[in-house]
């Protein structure tokens, strides 16, 4: 997390705590709400500039909230990992690392125009899904067998993690031939 985001998180959390603390008092006395409304009216509507400042401060908080919400909901593959026990502790390998190894394994395979890799934990090992866009000259069944063997062997050799299944999804066949694409 960048220094800017850290500072933003601290400021955001501080003000949310203060605001929720004030709101907590509302059920106990209607004066709290009246005073709060009066305070806002007295300070926001005094001039055009105060309205603009208020708008931008609230907009900043809104943007920060959306940003933290996005960070929280985004799937962080670095935190998802396959874990193996060792004599001195544990070894966990992130799914992002496994996916990047699978991608590298496919890099020099002829006949593939575009590829995406996804992975998920499966028992003691991992399942890998390859989504491919291939050239029209490719014999899909042959290529599928070849890349399944290659990816399984490369990932297992590098990580020691058992690859349980490799699913290959041919998403599309491109209109370009391998020759026209310079493959």
């Amino acid at each position, binding site marked *: *997390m960048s220094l800017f985001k*850290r500072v933003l*998180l601290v400021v955001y959390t501080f003000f949310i705590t203060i605001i929720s603390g004030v709101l907590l008092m509302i059920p106990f006395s209607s004066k709290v709400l009246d005073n709060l409304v009066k305070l806002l009216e007295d300070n926001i509507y005094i001039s055009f500039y105060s309205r603009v400042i208020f708008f931008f401060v609230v907009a900043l908080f809104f943007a920060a909230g959306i940003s933290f919400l996005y*960070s929280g909901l985004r799937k*962080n593959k*670095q*935190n998802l*990992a396959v874990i*193996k026990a*060792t004599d*001195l*502790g*544990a*070894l*966990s*390998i*992130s799914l*992002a*690392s496994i996916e*990047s*190894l699978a991608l*590298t394994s496919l890099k020099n395979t002829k006949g593939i125009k575009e590829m995406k890799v996804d992975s998920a934990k499966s028992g003691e090992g991992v399942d890998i899904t390859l989504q491919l866009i291939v050239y029209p000259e490719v014999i899909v069944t042959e290529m599928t067998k070849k890349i399944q063997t290659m990816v399984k062997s490369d990932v297992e*050799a*590098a*990580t*020691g993690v058992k690859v349980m299944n490799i699913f290959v999804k041919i998403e599309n066949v491109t209109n370009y031939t391998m020759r026209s694409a310079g493959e």
Partner: protein
Amino acid sequence: MSHIRQMPGDENSNIEVSEDVISTIASKATLETKGVSGLSAGIGKQIATMLNREHLSKGIKVLIQGNRVYIDVYVIISYGFRIPEVAWEIQNSIKRDVEAMTEAVVEEVNIHIQSINYESL
């Protein structure tokens, strides 16, 4: 911050070893291991560190309980190396160096492989 207290023979003096010291030793041992490209701390871990006030410096998290030490290492591995072998080397190096320099007992060294560095390609 937790410390390990050591009694160097003289009853009136003791040495305190902080988490920072162990973190530095572990960091050096890790970076000297062949196949390690660097240390990494994920965003989630950094937030957890802010909230829990756990020690996490440049990809090393240290927990001290009495004389026992638990270490988590967040590593970036260079492409072409076998991860289990590199991890085993890191674990052994950290245990050896920390125990030799501090007399603490290293109970666990957990290795977290965060990503692969392909610069060697």
